[in-house]
């Protein structure tokens, strides 16, 4: 029979639009022991992950594996669901705060799996990570599930959605999950296409009171730093990049999270303007500093998998050369179409760097999980020039060590380490050291920096790890890179 109702009538009575989350979950036929997923685009402002887990706990679910693109400090309440057996597995690119401490103390039944953003995209495409039900917080959605993190049209007076910008990580979840539920507090007119997730990948839309607080996206690892040491390191890193041979008119750039890494853009701006050096594109997490360069004509295109502040979110909505890309386009190592393969320069942070240039971005020097691998190993491997920035010491904790506590990015992919006390160039890249030396930037061996750190802070004691593996770090290609063992100071 031919459908003869008007689209307007269908829109107002969309069978996908449900009033209660419980109903949507039941319709998706979620079972105990299933794998569910979330995204972390609201970062520390996320209000969905904890709320949905509370609902699932109240519905009596047990043994769930929660695969979020990352976990933040705000997710500490998940600990109670771990203790009660609602959650027995976790997977993500990072974990911070009390939740991370609980994982490190061995509270979770199964080892947590850490994958990079590109690694997750690959695992989803290959079926290594199977999501039964994806919960996607969306700033806006129409009643058929065309959902996005920002809205480009005019909204009625008084309607002010909570924007998170790009839904880059959520897009792959929606595509590969067996079922997908969009949660939003703002229903917009159909068809809400162009940005975000298409209705084809969405099963149900649930209207909720709140999805997230955009003001808290730019907190913690994505803050804008005024710390003089961060700025000092960022300035040095910018000078290194400028003389690396990869700073040319038409180059491509990415900066990772962390005060110093994000601040590099501010210093590159002066050099780009002075030398009329323009970037073809900037990739990954987009910041206000990048938007400024874009609007000034110094970065042609912004390729945005996530937004680190409200300026970047607004730019995604208004600037026609600011594009939303998904995690697969961003960083899937097996997809030759991923943009990381065209990246010239990436600036990344580190919790620890060792003498082999290996990087740890996941565990602190106390052995406790406290960070995120994000796109670190993906972009380090993809970029022609990988610059890692770190202070030599954090307080009295050396960041340059003999051997990293947890291996997250292989030293083979790290070309230059910039610290406040010296710059080290990977011996695999002698041409870089030569170029820097020509302009008076002298490199030192990482061993020298390690000894300098130990001279000031003393040699660190071995960490009191227990025998049990509480987390596993997967390389972007899906192979096991390192185990993280339990550690409990209490």
């Amino acid at each position: 029979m031919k459908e003869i109702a008007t689209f307007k009538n269908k829109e107002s009575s969309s069978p996908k639009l449900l009033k209660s989350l419980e109903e949507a979950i039941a319709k998706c036929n979620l079972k105990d022991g299933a794998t569910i997923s979330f995204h972390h685009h609201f970062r520390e402002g996320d209000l969905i992950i904890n709320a949905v887990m509370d609902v699932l706990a109240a519905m009596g679910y047990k043994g769930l594996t929660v695969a979020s693109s990352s976990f933040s400090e705000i997710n500490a309440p998940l600990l109670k669901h771990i203790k009660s057996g609602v959650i027995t597995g976790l997977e993500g690119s990072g974990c911070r705060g009390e939740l991370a401490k609980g994982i490190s103390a061995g509270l979770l039944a199964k080892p947590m799996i850490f994958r990079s953003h590109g690694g997750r995209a690959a695992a989803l495409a290959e079926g290594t990570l199977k999501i039964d039900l994806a919960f996607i917080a969306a700033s806006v959605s129409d009643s058929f599930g065309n959902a996005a993190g920002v809205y480009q049209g005019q909204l009625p007076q008084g309607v002010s959605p909570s924007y998170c910008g790009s839904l880059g990580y959520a897009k792959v979840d929606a595509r590969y999950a067996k079922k997908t539920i969009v949660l939003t507090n703002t229903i917009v007119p159909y068809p809400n296409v162009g940005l975000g997730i298409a209705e084809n990948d969405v099963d149900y839309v649930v209207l909720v009171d709140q999805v997230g607080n955009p003001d808290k996206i730019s907190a913690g690892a994505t803050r804008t730093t005024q710390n003089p040491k961060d700025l000092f390191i960022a300035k040095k890193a910018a000078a290194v990049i400028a003389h690396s041979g990869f700073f040319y008119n038409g180059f491509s750039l990415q900066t990772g999270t962390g005060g110093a890494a994000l601040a590099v853009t501010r210093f590159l701006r002066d050099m780009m303007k002075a030398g009329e050096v323009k970037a073809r594109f900037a990739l990954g997490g987009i910041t206000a500093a990048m938007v400024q360069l874009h609007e000034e004509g110094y970065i042609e295109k912004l390729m945005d998998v996530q937004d680190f502040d409200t300026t970047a979110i607004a730019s995604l909505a208004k600037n026609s050369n600011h594009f939303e890309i998904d995690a697969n386009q961003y960083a899937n190592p097996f997809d030759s179409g991923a943009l990381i393969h065209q990246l010239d320069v990436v600036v990344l942070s580190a919790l620890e760097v060792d003498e082999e240039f290996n990087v740890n971005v996941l565990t602190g020097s106390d052995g406790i999980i406290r960070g995120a691998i994000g796109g670190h190993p993906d972009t380090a491997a993809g970029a022609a020039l990988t610059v890692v920035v770190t202070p030599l010491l954090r307080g009295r904790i050396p960041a340059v060590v003999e051997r990293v506590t947890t291996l997250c990015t292989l030293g083979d992919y790290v070309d230059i380490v910039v610290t406040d006390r010296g710059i080290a160039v990977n011996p695999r890249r002698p041409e870089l050291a030569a170029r820097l030396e020509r302009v008076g930037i002298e490199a030192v061996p990482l061993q020298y920096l390690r000894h300098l750190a130990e001279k000031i802070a003393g040699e660190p004691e071995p960490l009191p790890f227990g025998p049990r593996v509480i987390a596993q770090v997967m390389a972007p290609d899906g192979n096991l890179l390192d185990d993280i063992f339990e550690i409990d100071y209490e």
Partner: protein
Amino acid sequence: MMFVPGNQPGLLNDASLYGADVLIFDLEDSVALTEKDAARTLLAYALPKLDWGQAELMVRVNDLDGPFGLEDLEAVIKAGAKIIRLPKADNAEQVKNYDQIIGKIEAELNLPINSIEMLAAIESAQGVLNAKEIAAASPRLMGLALGAEDFTADLGVSRSKSGEELLLARQMIVLAAKAQGIDAYDTVYSQIDDLEGLAEETKRAKALGFRGKSVLHPNQIEVVHQVFAPSQEEIAQAQRLLAAVEEAKVRGSGVISLDGAMVDRPVILRAERIIHMAKSLNILKGEA
């Protein structure tokens, strides 16, 4: 000249990173009464141990009238401080008192006579009126500095952006210093986030004859350096001097001379700082 609180190990450790010409380790206003002994002990330990790069080391000690000043002086001079910043100088008598006590410590430590220099901070109406006598009170004085926060408090006025309430004090301090052949250093700019305001104030201070400025935060250093950037003549002279040092090294000679005059260590340090500043400001010619 950057103030560094004397009781914070992390800040001490990083203080030399940012290119300050002089580090002023503070035992006075930034250290709470209950922390005075700890700060002195920490600083006495850190001064000889850490690498301070090219910075000159100055310590602001507590007032000799109080219970901490004398111990401060003994500890920090022994630890290698080369310049003592007097907490406040209201009159010449106070300066002479410091001079004598430092002289005694010098003798006890077998240091060359008058090798420890002093910087007198003028922070009161009385101090400004006595600036001429203060500047002449001791051969140790390498400069006078204005302490504007205490000075404006003494006047009962607040500090303005344009700084007219400080104008006469600034001019009197510059005059008193120059009349004695020493330098004058301007007060701190306490709005740390306002780098434009800092640049404006620094330009005015330079125009009045100040030789430098005290700063509270590393982010302020570059702005001050830009205003006080060395001239191309100064850079060229510094390069010649450092070339002479290199040449002496090659010859294996410990004696360095340039244009027939002996060159001692403070002059070399100054030349290194000029080149360092020129490099960091990208005004060093002949390099990319």
